[in-house]
């Protein structure tokens, strides 16, 4: 199969087929259901690794492309157009990597296992689809496809206020994506070729074959931006995130933080910047300001949370602020850093949610005050939590640092003030993380219920160890990832540079 046109479609079909199979497994056979979904997600992961090995880092164009006409209704030309470049490659692999782990982490789900697994696999199809589709309508379809399974995962298998959280999540996201749909259609009316093909539209835009008046470009940019900003989530569109995370089951939290949030920043990178470079450049200061506010604000609010999951959720707001900041600094370092940070945030926050979920499985609470001194009873969990926490606060040598460093470095070249303010987030992240670690794991065991907790079992160790290994790998040898991003990121940068005044990065020397 590999090497043919269908290679990327197959990646979508495997989990899709898995979902179909799940639908026909009797709902009482819980173990079979779990096994089947684990099997399909693992196969998907292994298959996706082929793309990693066959990826050509130097190629200027999209790779593994398949493009066939799909819906040709009159003047509408919608294509089934999928492909990968250095930006989407790793996000796809991140998705396929986290899925089996999320399935493994769902062993505790006892109620309605069949629809649960079905939605998980459907979600995987949607997420991969979002990252590989190169047609605006196709993208929009996959984008919405991810919404529905997640809505049900939160709303059915969630905590106490699950319905509120699910509805909030749904309406927030929907409000943004409808605007995006309107913008997609508007863009279509400016396109004489009457199609929705991203590659083609970008090319025609850059050759001035499609001329968007600046106000129109600004409006379209804002419509796209809002959809993505809500997903990221960027301050002040973030309030759905803490609620969704607190109520979501562990696996949904992992996927939500690990992949769904990245769809927002991926969208910014894939659509907003190449399609609307002038608007992006014009609004970059304002957006960077929002990002910086988000970084500091998220961290400060995380500081005072009493619920571990909420704390991690707010920390996501802070970390994703870094990503947005990097994207809107428009240079190679910052955007590459942002892409890298997406991956590391996906890993480390995913792992944090897994760890918190494991605590929840044992104690059935997320409240910090219910814990304390857990390092005595669960040394392995404490040690792994420590590693992941260090990765999250950006300790050099672990993955978090590389992304944050490149983002800040790139932003510094663009605007020193922004980088300096954003850097305060580094201190704040250390404060809230260390504080929560101290309250949960250090000190004496106060609560008698905590005395009898068991340490990680084999399944849980199997979930966490791959993440830790990857965290270390990404931190020590980021070249594996950065090298494959170079060309694709450079293209985005070039596109922006096309419309920008040349920037003077270097300051004058003193003396001479």
């Amino acid at each position, binding site marked *: 199969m590999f090497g043919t046109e269908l290679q990327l479609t197959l990646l979508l079909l495997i989990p899709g087929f898995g979902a179909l199979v799940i639908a026909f497994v009797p709902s009482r056979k819980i173990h079979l259901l779990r096994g089947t979904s684990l099997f399909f997600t693992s196969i998907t992961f292994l298959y996706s690794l082929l793309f990693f090995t066959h990826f050509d880092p130097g190629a200027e164009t999209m790779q593994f492309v398949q493009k066939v006409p799909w819906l040709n209704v009159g003047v509408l030309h919608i294509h089934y157009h999928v492909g990968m470049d250095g930006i989407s490659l790793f996000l796809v692999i991140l998705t396929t990597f986290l899925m089996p782990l999320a399935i493994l982490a769902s062993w505790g789900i006892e109620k309605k296992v069949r629809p649960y697994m079905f939605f998980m696999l459907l979600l995987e199809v949607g997420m991969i689809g979002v990252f590989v589709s190169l047609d605006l309508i196709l993208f929009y379809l996959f984008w919405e496809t991810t919404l529905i399974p997640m809505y049900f995962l939160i709303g059915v298998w969630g905590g106490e206020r699950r319905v509120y959280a699910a509805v909030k999540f749904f309406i*927030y996201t929907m409000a943004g994506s409808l605007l995006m749909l309107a913008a997609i259609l508007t863009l279509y009316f400016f396109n004489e070729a009457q199609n929705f093909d991203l590659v083609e539209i970008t090319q025609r835009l850059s050759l001035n074959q499609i001329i968007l008046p600046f106000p129109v470009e600004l409006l379209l940019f804002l419509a796209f931006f809002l959809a993505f900003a809500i997903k990221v989530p960027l301050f*002040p569109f973030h*309030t759905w995130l*803490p609620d969704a995370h607190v109520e979501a089951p562990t696996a949904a939290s992992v996927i939500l933080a690990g992949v769904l949030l990245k769809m927002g920043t991926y969208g910014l990178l894939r659509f907003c910047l190449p399609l609307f470079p002038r608007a992006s450049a014009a609004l970059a200061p304002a957006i960077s300001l929002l990002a910086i506010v988000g970084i500091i*604000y998220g961290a*400060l*609010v995380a*500081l*005072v*949370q009493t619920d571990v999951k909420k704390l991690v959720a707010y920390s996501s707001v802070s970390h994703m602020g870094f990503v947005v900041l990097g994207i809107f600094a428009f*240079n*190679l*370092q910052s955007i*590459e*850093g942002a892409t890298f940070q997406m991956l590391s945030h996906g890993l480390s926050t995913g792992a944090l949610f897994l760890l918190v979920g494991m605590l929840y499985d044992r104690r059935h609470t997320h409240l910090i005050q219910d814990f304390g*001194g857990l*390092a*005595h009873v669960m040394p392995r969990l404490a040690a792994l939590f420590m590693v992941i926490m*260090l990765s999250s606060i950006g*300790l*050099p*040598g672990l993955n978090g*640092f*590389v992304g944050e*460093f*490149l983002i*800040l*470095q790139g932003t*510094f*070249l663009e605007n*020193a003030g922004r*980088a*300096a303010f954003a*850097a*305060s987030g*580094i*201190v704040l992240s*250390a*404060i809230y993380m*260390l*504080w929560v670690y*101290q309250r949960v*794991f*250090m*000190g*004496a065991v106060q609560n008698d219920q905590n005395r009898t907790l068991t340490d990680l079992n084999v399944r849980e160790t199997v979930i966490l160890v791959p993440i830790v290994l990857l965290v270390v790998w990404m931190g*020590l*040898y*980021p*070249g594996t990832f*950065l*090298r494959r991003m*170079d060309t694709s990121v450079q293209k985005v940068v070039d596109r922006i540079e096309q419309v920008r005044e040349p920037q003077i*990065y*270097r*300051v004058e*020397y*003193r*003396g*001479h």
Partner: protein
Amino acid sequence: MVLEHYWILILFPLLGAAINGILGRRFPHPVIAWLSCSMVALSFLVALLSFFNFIRLPEDQRIITHHLFTWIQSGNFVSEVSFLLDPLSMVMILVVTGVGFLIHIYSLGYMAGQSGYYRYFAYLNLFIFMMSVLVLADNYLLMFVGWEGVGLCSYLLIGFYFEKKNAGDAAKKAFILNRIGDVGFLIGVFLIFRTFESVQYLTVFQAVSEQFAVMGTEFGVLGAITLLLFIGATGKSAQVPLYVWLPDAMEGPTPVSALIHAATMVTAGVYMIARSAPLYSRAPETLFIIAVVGISTALLAALIATVQRDIKKVLAYSTISQLGYMFLAIGVGAFGAGVFHLLTHAFFKALLFLGSGSVIMALHHEQDLFNMGGLRKYLPVTFYTMWMGALALAGVPLFSGFFSKDAILWKTFAAGNEALWLMGVVVAGLTAFYISRLMFLAFHGRERSEKQHQGAPDPSPKEPSWSVTLPLIILAGFSLLAGFLGLPSYWGSNRLEEFLAPSFRFQFSGQPAAAMEHAHLTEVILTLVTLAVAFFGFALAYHFYIKNPQVAVRLANRFSWLYSLLRRKFLVDEIYDWLLVGPVQRLSQTILWKGMDVRVIDGLVHGTASLMQAWSHRVKRIQSGYARLYATWILGGALLILFYYYWISP
């Protein structure tokens, strides 16, 4: 052969840390300990062999780099994992692995039988690894890896007794204050890259020596870079205003205090600035700031040290104060003198800490000086070795501290900073006072310990095992002898400074500092003044704590406000709490979270929803259930449409 692959010395401790950290829980204690010690011993051996090969090289070849792999590369930004061995890092690596090895040996005895043994040794090994990376790095970013790495190890080791809340708090505080400094460092690195398009020392230094050949007067980009890096140093090396973590860090095990919080990690700031001498020597404004910060830290900490009751706290403040000296040296452009003091301080302060550890052990974790006394006859080895350390700290001639401290004060005076010199002399007096106070209270006088009086099964404190005393003796030897590496000019040649010279070759040399270099007579006179002040401090301590203990109490009562101000460390922690910690927490809790998030944003979201709902409640009345009413509506609609087509839009 050794010189080509000197970098492998960093691998041993990493290996030890990995093995002990992952598998150590299942190992018996001796295996853990010996694995860990032998790894550091191997490192030290490699360092030593490298050193002997190194000094045989001609002076201009004493820069050996070794490239391992490219770490981060993005566009024109490149950071390599590669190492640089030059005289400066040679000295440092010897100190790190040497003192580190001794403290590993000491830990064998000190930590015996404690739970978490494997963790302790894994962390300690990891620390040696990180410190080696910091020292051997050949670019700023790799140094930053070690820089944060040692901060992490410090965090882990301070919080080693994590069941104690104080330990957890202290660990967190240390890490966070270090982080604040680290952000400064990091931004400094950004600025370095923006200015020089490289973060590699040699490239940067080469560039700076070409582009900044003539000293400008305004505060430019170099001033910014150096100041930012210095912020990092204030965090790591516990200078004003970020020093408050170091006294709290004494919650960690005593060998950790000796290794990390006295001998090695806290001196990383000094090392970093000495390493960046080519930049700093071209930024006189920053140097002045460093000198002022250094001397005020020295003075402040020395003052606080005079009234502390906890033996380790006295030593902690003493460390801060001595670090202040080192920064003073750097601030007046005497990088060599700063490194020299770093070296001697590493020996004698480690010795003092280890000695205090031995006392604490013998007294079953009693740390209050006023519960000690008369220990001289129980702990003879500790007693004699600690006195050697104390004399070195106080700057008694022929002991190592004398030479290094004197070099600093002389350079300060020679650079024309008489006021700074005067304050330095005062600090010397205070130093002599507080360290003799410590010694007198602990080892002389009557036995005040309750444990000594109560009929415990083992009433008399005993000297601990050989693994504790051996490092004490060796360190005492170094404390006595290390000073002879850097003799003052009226006596002989300063061999350390000559050895280090190649490391500072990009240094800006146009300063007029060397004008009084050979005024031997002045130097001798100044030395005598310092000695006199130090002796006065010693005599005062003797008077207060041996001859006439009531005087001290009376004085304390007389100047109770001053005493309590000192006792409470100038209320700095409280001020920080009141000014920063409290407001930030309140801001986050009430304004940002409960206010902005819950009230404003969610209020808007929920408000929109309620508005919709309220309107729906009104609009739904149209759905009245009366078919005839619906028909009327339809008719009305039809009318409107007709109106539109026949009158408005015919």
